[in-house]
């Protein structure tokens, strides 16, 4: 029996059953996108730009088309031209023209790896050979790779038509948007401050690093309908974006979700899917495309590198009185960085009366960014949480005490204005403060301990669920949310809890777009919250129908039947034996026919998430290699449906955050060519780099959600870079202001500090 958040006891929620898809995954039977094959299937390959910025003067495919085995070649000329404006496509706001231009370059290539043409052939080798025979004449242009350079007057312009409101309709620009958030009077606030810290931070572009590369199989039928098998976080977004890019009706596309080998936000858009359908339409055969790792790194959406200036002021007694931030994020080749989210999260953990935040979305000659776990928030927290740490030190306060004095709580206005409702920022700080880890003493040379907090909004959006009751008393839970991180098991547990059946009698099924109602992406930490809510309501629909059937058997009215602890019984049932779903199921045919429970939801009442992370580490004084010694993360998780998978999200997000902190970055040369296109050189942490991570789940239930669920997947990636930076400071005395804090960068900073200390000592002598 698990503890509940609302006074009731749960039998299944809060336990840790084995995941339903586990056997398929450990035996290799689970089907991923690249596993799909069909009779007569062709193999697609994509020709990619060798330049970071160039005009496409001509494309000649004659030689490639003449190669035996080549069945079709497409370029942007084969795609419809779309309106150059923001449109709603599924749950996304997206410029469809830019999306189309990212799938196949039109007129210019804008980054190393930008797709120029695609080929379908009878084998992958022939398709590769055909790519080599396509002749593209380029006029190479100077690239602009960094956000600071792209904002300078006279910088090379990526998109001829890009304008912003401030510079006006006549001014070409790389600055796609400026946002501003303001509360109080920041200048007056700084006047009240006894201590003011102002720092500038740089963070590198990083990739989500999902293990499974992108893939798609497209099958276009002669009747105008198409089917796509692919690895995606959202089948419905693939459907709507593919339909828009190809100019066909959404209803004529069915998207079948494969198992997914990670996404972390990077699989919420399309790259290969429209090409697979287009090539299939031209050839009449199924067409499969799969990316290599190099293609994933060169041409799919990482998250932004950034420049952030953060200035905060506090009184002597440790009260924050003003915060001013300036953020500029790399959007990649097309507008749409997560700088807005960065701006809205950067000061949100704290109750600061005077704030001013300016944010700029800037295009550069890098791949178009995509979502990555709490998009934009980790960059921002690196800046603000480092400055907060420095202010705590100035005030002579323990870093947790300082944060507790200023922590956002219920009713604190967010950066964007509306006040927080029920949140658990303080609770995560208290959990770390009271942890054995924090109370323990860290000893030894070159070691340091750092703490940081982070905030993420979470989202709700739309979900659908269907539950089928079978005659043997088992049930199928049909959902449209692709399973990342064990969401199938969580949905099954919710249904089992409501229906009072064994968890092994519930079969969760992830359905294609023709077989379930609209369901938005598995992302935004929304799946357990919104799809879980839909499953809960669908199960309640089943309960309502079970009562009707039992009432028939007992010759009662439905309202005279009660359902409690998984048993149906008459409200005034003298001598009537209570009945379970399993006992009633065989009698459905004779009481009215099958029972199907349904629910759809456009979820409201989303509960935002906070996390606080504590890191111990040791820095090698000669090489500056950082060894993480111990990590504890405390997170407000609302109600943990399957605690093991919640812990997994907390640990996974923390691991990614540590990789971002210490090693991960894109290396471009002076021509804008990516030089680390494999995982040997793009250095993500492995199990050898990290200790076992301790987790503290703080359960502050989300009001309004029937189970108190709060999204958990994203916020744990927010605090780690700053927590690591703060720990490095305590180990070395060096405040790192740039990510990643890799050995070369950290060693340089340590040597600079040593040189400064030596000069001071010499001067003193």
């Amino acid at each position, binding site marked *: 029996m698990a503890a509940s958040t609302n006074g009731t006891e749960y039998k299944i929620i809060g336990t840790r059953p084995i995941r339903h898809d586990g056997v398929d995954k450990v035996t290799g039977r689970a089907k991923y996108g690249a596993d799909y094959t069909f009779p007569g299937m062709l193999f697609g390959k994509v020709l990619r730009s060798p330049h970071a910025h160039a005009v496409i003067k001509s494309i000649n495919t004659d030689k490639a088309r003449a190669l035996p085995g080549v069945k079709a070649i497409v370029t942007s000329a084969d795609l419809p031209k779309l309106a150059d404006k*923001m*449109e*709603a496509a599924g*749950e*996304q*706001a*997206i410029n469809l023209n830019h999306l189309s231009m990212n799938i196949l370059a039109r007129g210019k290539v804008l980054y190393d790896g930008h797709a120029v043409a695609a080929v379908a052939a009878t084998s992958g080798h022939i398709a590769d050979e055909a790519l080599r025979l396509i002749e593209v004449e380029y006029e190479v242009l100077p690239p602009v790779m960094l956000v600071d350079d792209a904002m300078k007057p006279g910088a090379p312009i990526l998109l001829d038509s890009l304008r912003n409101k401030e510079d006006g309709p006549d001014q070409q620009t790389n600055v796609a948007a*400026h*946002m*501003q*958030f*303001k509360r109080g009077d920041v200048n007056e606030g700084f006047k009240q401050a006894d201590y003011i810290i102002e720092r500038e931070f740089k963070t590198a572009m990083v990739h*989500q690093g999902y293990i499974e590369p992108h893939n798609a199989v497209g099958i276009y039928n002669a009747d105008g309908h198409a089917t796509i098998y692919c690895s995606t976080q959202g089948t419905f977004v693939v459907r709507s974006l593919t339909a828009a890019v190809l100019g066909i009706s959404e209803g004529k596309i069915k998207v079948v979700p494969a198992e997914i080998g990670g*996404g*972390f*936000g*990077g699989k*919420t858009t399309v790259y290969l899917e429209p090409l697979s359908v287009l090539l299939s339409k031209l050839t009449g055969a199924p067409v499969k495309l799969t990316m290599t790792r190099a293609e994933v790194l060169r041409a799919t959406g990482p998250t932004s590198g950034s420049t952030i200036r953060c200035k905060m002021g506090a009184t002597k007694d440790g009260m924050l009185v003003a915060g001013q931030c300036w953020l500029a994020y790399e959007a990649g080749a097309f507008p749409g960085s997560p700088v*807005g*989210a960065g701006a*809205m999260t950067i000061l949100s953990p704290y109750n600061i009366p005077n704030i001013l935040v300016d944010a700029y979305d800037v295009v550069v000659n890098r791949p178009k960014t995509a*979502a*990555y*776990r*709490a*998009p934009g928030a980790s960059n921002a927290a690196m800046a603000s949480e480092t400055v907060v740490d420095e202010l705590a030190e100035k005030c002579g306060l323990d870093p947790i005490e300082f944060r507790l004095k200023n922590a956002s709580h219920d009713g604190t206005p967010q950066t*964007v*204005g*509306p*006040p*927080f*409702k029920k949140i658990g920022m303080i609770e995560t700080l208290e959990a770390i403060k009271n942890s054995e880890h924090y109370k323990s003493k860290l000893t030894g040379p070159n070691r340091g301990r750092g703490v940081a907090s982070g905030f*993420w*909004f*979470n*989202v*709700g959006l739309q979900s659908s669920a269907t539950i089928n009751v079978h005659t043997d008393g088992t049930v199928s839970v049909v959902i449209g949310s692709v399973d990342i991180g064990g969401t199938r098991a969580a949905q099954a547990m919710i249904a089992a809890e409501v229906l009072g059946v064994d968890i092994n009698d519930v079969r969760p099924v992830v359905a294609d777009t023709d077989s379930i109602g609209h369901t938005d992406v598995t*992302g*935004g*930490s*929304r799946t357990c919250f919104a799809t879980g809510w839909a499953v809960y309501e669908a199960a309640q629909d089943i309960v309502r129908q079970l009562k009707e059937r039992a009432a028939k058997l007992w010759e009662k009215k439905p309202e005279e039947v009660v359902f409690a602890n998984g048993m149906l019984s008459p409200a005034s049932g003298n001598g009537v034996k209570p009945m379970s779903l399993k006992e009633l199921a065989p009698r459905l045919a004779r009481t009215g026919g099958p029972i199907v429970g349904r629910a759809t939801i*456009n*979820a*409201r*009442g*989303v509960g935002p998430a906070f996390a606080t992370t504590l890191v111990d580490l040791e820095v090698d004084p000669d090489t500056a290699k950082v060894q993480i010694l111990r990590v504890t993360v405390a997170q407000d998780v609302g109600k943990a449906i399957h605690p093991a998978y919640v812990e997994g999200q907390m640990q996974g997000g923390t691991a990614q955050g540590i990789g971002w902190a210490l090693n991960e970055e894109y290396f471009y040369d002076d021509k804008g060519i990516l030089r680390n296109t494999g995982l040997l050189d793009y250095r993500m942490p492995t199990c050898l780099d990290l200790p076992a991570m301790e987790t503290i789940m703080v359960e502050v239930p989300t009001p309004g959600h029937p189970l108190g669920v709060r999204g958990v*997947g*994203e916020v744990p990636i927010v605090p780690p870079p700053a927590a690591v930076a703060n720990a490095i400071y305590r180990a070395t005395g060096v405040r790192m202001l740039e990510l990643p804090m890799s050995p070369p960068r950290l060693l340089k900073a340590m040597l600079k500090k040593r040189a400064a200390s030596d000069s001071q000592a010499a001067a003193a002598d």
Partner: protein
Amino acid sequence: MRVSSRISTINPGRTSAEVRPLVLQMATVVIPALLRKLTDGKERVTVAGRNVGQVVADLNRQFPGISENLIEDGEIKPSIAVSVDGEMGTGGVLEPVGESSEVFFIPAIGGG
């Protein structure tokens, strides 16, 4: 003013200039910082309306031109989200606005 198409559906037979809420309710719109140049620097503006579309229409009556920053083709711009009384709206221009509600227009957020 492109909000007119949706508003005229709610109030058939009226042009956008004539749109008035059926029942006078006064909500407060907190103006996004960069749009305050259109409201004479005012951060908070009292408006009439029973839903977000009507609120924007009344805001635009008071400060002509502001609605084109918020509304496109009769709907809230895809890049904007609306918060009413601290709750993220799901109904777009039809999102109900209560008496004394506080309405914020903020950048839409996705997630990973």
